[in-house]
């Protein structure tokens, strides 16, 4: 997802007997579905896990501007350009809400950004794939935002209050993101033969990376159990992935596009589609910096940050001067 493989304590979930009284009371609140607020006591592991998860989520929104921004200057109509601008503007806004939520845990936006730029924090693997034709912009809205919505809807029930509230705001905007993406896909899939080819090509390249967004299989996801117990995660990786496949297959059929998985088929008994897992070695390569665009994405973000240093300093200095002048006048 936008937050994948978030490290938790790395130890198993404590039994009630192993917990301190404080931890037991905390766990009882989580189990009762209460929201944890910034001033409440929380285990240090809970705080750290949340910082990693929310920070990664925020970074994903910000880095996620790049693959879509890649097509803003080439959008084929004024309306498409306007819609894409509005969407990317939303994503930057999501980044802002999320950094604010992280700040309630005692970490500043600048600290998180530094960690990202030093390669010590991650962002979603999906944004390390290139956008090569216009239908990719459709595929991102349809598949990437589609997968994100699935996860973010579940996160509206996450146990940390500020995170849950950020998700509620974000989810309101996300359905427009998916709709505009699917709308592009329809135009392409029902368009000229070349457009249909672009649509199929986009689906071919984005299908497995979209499945990877949910993170590795639950079998291999060492930190999930603790995050689930703390109510930070509210849906397992495999649950989300299955739900996504079940939702997306009929949509692809309607478009007349072929999902690049010869083994995809409806399983009457399970009431779900059977499908092929993504190549997890590719996923780990991307997560570890070797995706097709990791180097370019990080270079772009570092450059933006470095080139902007004089602006941020200038604005701060002006604010200081203004405050000093106001004080002198009093």
């Amino acid at each position, binding site marked *: 997802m936008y937050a994948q493989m978030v490290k938790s304590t790395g130890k198993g979930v404590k039994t009630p007997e192993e917990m301190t009284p404080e931890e037991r009371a905390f766990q009882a609140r989580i189990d009762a579905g209460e929201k944890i607020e910034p001033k409440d006591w929380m285990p240090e592991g809970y705080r750290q896990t949340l910082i990693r998860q929310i920070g990664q989520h925020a970074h994903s929104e910000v880095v996620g501007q790049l693959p879509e921004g890649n097509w803003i*200057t080439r959008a084929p*109509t004024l309306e498409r*350009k306007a819609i894409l*601008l509005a969407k990317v*503007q939303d994503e930057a806004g999501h980044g802002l809400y999320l950094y604010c939520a992280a700040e309630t845990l005692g970490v500043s936006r600048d600290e998180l950004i530094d960690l990202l730029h030093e390669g010590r924090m991650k962002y979603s693997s999906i944004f390390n794939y290139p956008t090569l034709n216009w239908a990719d912009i459709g595929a991102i809205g349809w598949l990437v935002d589609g997968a994100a919505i699935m996860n973010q809807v579940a996160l509206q029930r996450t146990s940390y209050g500020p995170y849950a509230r950020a998700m509620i705001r974000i989810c309101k905007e996300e359905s427009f993101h998916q709709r505009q993406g699917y709308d592009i896909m329809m135009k392409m899939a029902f368009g000229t033969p070349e457009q249909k080819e672009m649509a199929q090509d986009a689906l071919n390249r984005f299908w497995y990376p979209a499945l990877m967004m949910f993170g590795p299989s639950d079998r291999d996801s060492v930190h999930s159990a603790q995050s689930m117990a703390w109510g930070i995660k509210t849906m397992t990786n495999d649950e989300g992935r299955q739900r996504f496949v079940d939702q997306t297959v009929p949509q692809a059929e309607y478009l007349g596009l072929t999902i690049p998985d010869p083994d995809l088929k409806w399983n009457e008994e399970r009431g779900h589609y059977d499908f092929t897992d993504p190549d997890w070695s590719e996923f780990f390569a991307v997560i570890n910096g070797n995706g097709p665009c990791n180097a370019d994405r990080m270079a772009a973000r570092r450059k933006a940050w470095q*080139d902007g240093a004089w602006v941020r300093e*200038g604005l*701060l200095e002006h604010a200081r001067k203004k405050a000093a002048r106001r004080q002198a006048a009093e």
Partner: protein
Amino acid sequence: MSALFEFLLRQGDNALVLGHRVSEWCGHAPVLEEDIALANTALDLIGQTQMWLGLAGEVEGKGRSADDLAFLRDVWDFRNLLLVERPNGDFGHTMMRQFLFDAFNLVHLTELANSTDDRIAAIAEKAGKEAAYHLERSRNTVVALGDGTEESHARMQAALDALWPYVGEIFENDSVSDELAADGIAPEPASLRAAWDARVQEALAEATLRHPEGDFAHRGGKTGVMHTEHLGHLLTQMQWLQRAYPGATW
């Protein structure tokens, strides 16, 4: 080309080309709030483009849509000011260009809201609200960075000096503007200069920036006679899909 059509192209092309330039910042701004604000500005300008070029197509009466005008004309048919096709440069350069344009746009739209052509008055009314907001933001940024650090001050002064030769064109009258002014459709650009000067001088003073001397002006944008080399590259990118796959619906 009728004067009215040409005037509407000038309006639409300014918004289109500047909106495109601003949109180039997407994901690369100095701070997240600026990413959001720049995207928002670009979005407003593209919206204004749709209105101006939409009306231009209507007035021309040859069945061309706003998209046809945006994506299927070549450089010599564009009627935007040279100022707005200048490359972005650094963030300070982008914001200075925005400020110089916003100040004009607001003063101009305020007059156009009283146009004898109701369609123009209606667009100006709507666009004027956005322009007022853009101006407030670009003015405050110019002031803050001008009156910021030594470096930010120097960069803003350099931007102002580099862009100043593109100011004169904004206020030049010609046969197109003479005709529209006679009909009460649009003001003569020269008549807007004093109001523009007042706004600009006030901001530059607060920004502690030196007002450039000299009034040398590059021209050729709004007449289409001589654009800069930059416009062709901008159009190459912007128009690529429409040109490569003619007749497709997107």
